[in-house]
């Protein structure tokens, strides 16, 4: 009887409006995809931009992985010219049909069908930025589904041939979270140590937050608070984009420690960042 009650009588629902017709995940991916479609749909021809600012028009652009060179076909003469990757600051190539197909599947919430196609894009269009776009969608899907190992694999693939500035910050964040989840402590520690050398406050704040996540994953909740979450909250209060997450994680760590100060964190989150994703989850 007791077991039944526990299973079925759970806490009451949180109130009205607790259903969503479209999953949060799908909506986000579609926003990204839409932005990319708009991007891709721009009427620019293929071209590359060199590091000195020169724009080189092309009828097609391809990338040779082994040699790390871009081959640009001149639209007028048809001649192919190679450019080493380190000279190339930006690449614009036609949107692959595969990518369009993948977006359609994501829209229809057919993630399991979309994944192999997105992986094909990552594979076939390495170095042409479409791998990064596809990789971002893949990482988001895998992150949402808790597939940390896949997140790492995709990130490693797309960063191998892409310039760092092409890789969205979110992707790096998912990657770092995946490292923590898969217990790749040495790698994440190195990364955090590098970030802590920066004098860029948002990077420092993020490093502290990640440090907290790492310590929490090792079960060191108090350390996670002292060297991670509380540090972020107190010393980086001006870095607004990390505060809701830091407050939320501090709250959870304190709850797990049975510390009633968790309520204080909850109130701060609700008061200062009421519209944040983290506040909405606890309302």
């Amino acid at each position: 009887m007791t077991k039944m009650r526990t299973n079925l009588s759970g806490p009451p629902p949180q109130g009205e409006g607790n259903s969503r017709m479209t999953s949060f995940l799908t909506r986000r991916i579609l926003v990204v995809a839409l932005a990319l479609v708009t991007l891709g749909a721009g009427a620019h021809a293929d071209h590359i931009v060199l590091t000195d600012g020169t724009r080189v028009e092309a009828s097609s652009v391809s990338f040779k992985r082994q040699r790390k060179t871009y081959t640009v076909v001149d639209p007028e003469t048809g001649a192919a010219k190679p450019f080493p990757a380190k000279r190339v600051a930006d690449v614009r190539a036609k949107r692959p049909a595969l990518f369009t197909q993948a977006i359609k599947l994501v829209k229809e919430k057919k993630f399991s069908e979309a994944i192999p196609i997105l992986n094909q894009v990552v594979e076939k269009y390495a170095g042409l930025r479409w791998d990064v776009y596809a990789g971002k969608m893949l990482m988001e899907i895998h992150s949402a589904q808790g597939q940390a190992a896949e997140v790492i694999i995709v990130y490693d693939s797309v960063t191998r041939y892409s310039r760092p500035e092409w890789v969205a910050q979110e992707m790096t964040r998912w990657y770092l979270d995946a490292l923590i989840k898969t217990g790749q402590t040495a790698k994440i520690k190195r990364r955090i140590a590098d970030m802590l050398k920066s004098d860029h406050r948002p990077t420092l704040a993020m490093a502290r937050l990640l440090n907290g996540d790492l310590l929490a994953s090792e079960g060191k909740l108090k350390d996670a608070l002292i060297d991670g979450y509380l540090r972020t909250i107190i010393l980086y209060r001006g870095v607004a984009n990390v505060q809701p997450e830091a407050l939320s994680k501090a709250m959870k760590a304190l709850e797990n420690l049975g510390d009633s100060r968790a309520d204080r964190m909850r109130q701060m989150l609700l008061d200062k960042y009421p519209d944040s994703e983290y506040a909405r989850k606890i309302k």
Partner: protein
Amino acid sequence: MLMAAAITLILTSGNGTGYAATMARLTLNCVRNVAVFCVAGFLMAPTAGYGDASIERELEYIRGLNELGFGDYASIVLESVRGKHDGDVVARAELTILISQGKFDEANALVAKRPNKNSQSTWAMRLQIADGHYAWSRPHEMVRVYDTFIESFSKAVPENMREFVLNASYRYAQMLVALGQDKRAVAAMKTLLLSGPPKEVQRQIQIEMADLLVRMGEAAKGAERKALFARADEICKDIQWGGQDLWFGRSAVMMAHMRVVEGDRDGARKIIVGYLPMLKAIHQSLVAFAQEQGDDHVLSLTPVAECRYLLGKLHYEDAMDAFAAAEEEEDAQTARRLETKGEVHLIGKLITGTRRDKNAALYHLYNVFVKYPTTIWSAKSGQTANRIIDLLKERGREIKIEKIDMTEVIRAQFKEARAKLAQQDFKTAAEAYLATLALFPDSPVSVNSLADLAECYVELQDELYVELVIEYLADRFSTNPELSEKAGDAVARIARTYARLDYKQRADEVNAFFFSRFKSHPNVPRVVFRLGEDQFRNKVYDAALPYYERVRDEHAKSSVYLDALQRIAYCYSGLEQTKAAITAFKSYIELLDKQPPRQARITSMFKLAELYRGAGALNSAYNQYAGISKLLASSRQKYEASPDERAANQKILEGSMFWRARMVSLRTKAPKKIPKGVPGDRDWPRYYKLVAIKYYKEFVDAYPKSEIAPAALGQVGTLYTLLNKPVGAREALDRLQRDYPDTKEAKNALFILAKNLLELNQKKEAVAAFKQMFAGEKGRYSAGQIMEAGQYLFGVKDYETAQQAFERAIDLTEDARMTERLLLWIGKTLRAKEDYKGAIAAIEKMLALSPKSAYTVAAAFILARSFAEVAKDAGSDAEKKMNFDKSTKAIMRIFKYTKPSNKEVRARADLELADVQVLRGQTREALGSYMRIWLLRSSSNPQERPFKEAAFSKAVPMMLETERWLDAKDTCEEYLTEFAAGKYAAEARKWLGQASINITGGDEQEPDDEDEDEPVGAAAAGGGQ
């Protein structure tokens, strides 16, 4: 003190030019921008910089942890600092913590230990303590330390300490200014100047000194004012001789202002016009600097803005004088001339056609507004310009110029204050808000700023000023149709700030204020609902209920109405008021029926079914379960809009099918209407069991993967057993063990069977099944399983059989820890059987076996009660005393082994102590103990609340018995406030009535001296907290 000084500053500046307040603000701006010094305060820059950013960071972190209430974590960080840095740094960090906790004696003791009393680092620490005094509003202590400091260096300053002494002296001067001790501040600045600071610093100090003298002069009269202004004038000229810079500009403005204060407008005008070209050059330098730095904040310091504003203001005042004179004038022509003169001052002399001379109020003011938008003068100019336009309109003069939209201007003025608030620099933020609010108290932008200001005061723990702000918001805006909603939001926000900082009582008070002054605010229902949620989340249902009921009763049209009804139902359920819960759920479901379908209806129906079941209303429960099954079978999709809801409905469906079968199996009577064709003498109990079996089987066949499918098969086995159909029973149990081998049901088939029989009220059969377990061959059931059986029997109060189970389990085990647990259970069981001596023996055996047992506290509770009961029935006084003493000793043990943070156990122990005192006949002591629980335990803590309530129920009857009417009345009134829907509400009202009747007018009940006795035990041992 600082706030009072700031407010005094604002209030005494009057409505003239607001010079003092504005200059104070500008001074702060200058200070920050020149970035040489900063206003002192515990929370601001360090006294002696160690130059190492990482150390400063750690200190900032330590401070921050303390402020957030994590003093324990701050100590941990301090220890890590200790490991990495030298003694001075560590000492500073320790000081930081001590000062933040107000422990000044210990801070002083720390500094007293230092070997060199006059070194820079020692002085830095002494001044850190002085700054701490200032932050803690103890200015006399601060002044005492700083005076000693100034005295020590008044004659000579060692070269290596020059910068330190200058910084500290300047900071002291600034604090004196903030405290309104201007004369002292001037003296301190004089000392500063004598010590030979660098040139740029000297000029800043000079201008600030002149500022102070001007302010003092404004407040003075006659010869005193003259003397002060003369000194200020002298300083200004000295500055001007030193070069053309920001201070030069300030000095020129100051000289003009002094003329204005003395009523010499022409003199002021002459100075401004004379200096204007030079001030414009200074302005250009500021522009270049701002561009270079990429920060236009410094442009707010331009002297040109104030000068142009002053010119405009002078013209305005001249105009007003002319208009006033015109009204007094009897001669019409002269009057007309005066009117024209006034207009010329406002809009300029007509030169040709429509062209006018630009030397007029409106021109100057617009100029300032447009060209110098970041300055305070921009806002003031805008205000005055609008006033002029209104005035001209009243006089029938149409001006082709738009009134200035002050919204953005005012918002810009608050920008700095907002920035400080975001940095949690509450002191500076409050000053900045106050200064700007004094200028713009009524604008829509100001409403939010008032809430920000209140937040600053809350953080600074200045209750008086919070009250002032809240009252102001209500008085000024609650009836303003455009701003009342905003003002109400602001007040509600202040309440939330208190709640966030854990000042629950204040939060409640501010919320009550919000409800009373902003009754029709659209957020009232949501706020009330949220307050209910705060209690509901902590499972304090009786405190949550009144909020939800208020939403139900007063806000039926609000968006949270339905949710409130649902919560009311859950509150009653949580309070185990089943009848009320059932009524509430029924009402809620009826209302839901009028809405579009939603999953909440299914969940509520299921909850209602559970309530019926718990109340023994089996037919009603059956109907609900059957109804849910039918509804989900026919139109399930309407009630699930997401995967989560689908999953929830699935679980409910499975549960409903299971329980429907169970309800049927419990039926024994024939239905009211026997279906056609059914014999009237049917064996109905048997029939129902067969129907139940059919239902269970249908369920398992439909949902074999359900978590409760094994339980259903267990029930089938049990029912077949009852029907004396061993084949069917065997088949069911075989299927259970074949298809669900790893489940508890499969592994404990006999146990499950016994349990099911108990739940079907077949106690005899159940006990037989249990005994079969105990009697079974050794090894068939482990000691743990038999112990579990015993626990189950204990739960259903079959103490005899439970005892047998535990004793059997002890025989089966050789594990010391298991034996320990079993002995504890035997002790519990014997106590429940009121075999107190037996209970004592079992527990003492347990403690002998394991003196440091993890169950010491639980054991102590049993011993405490058992010894007390034995004592009560003891023959001799000696034996009574001995056993009561043992009981008390056991309770002391509970306190010893329970952490102070474990409020529930300590509250329970307090109650136990009081109960033992009652048994002991120590009525007064017992009443003292109950009252201690009542007064010191918190009703908002869910762990302490039930004990507080229990203490109340015992204390008040004792008070009434001993005719302590006043105490009884007060206690009942408090109870009815804190436990409005509590268990003893009805009794409380009755007792209150009884006490009130017996209180005669004017006769205060004098407490007995005896009531002040120290209660026995807990207080002396430090327990009970």
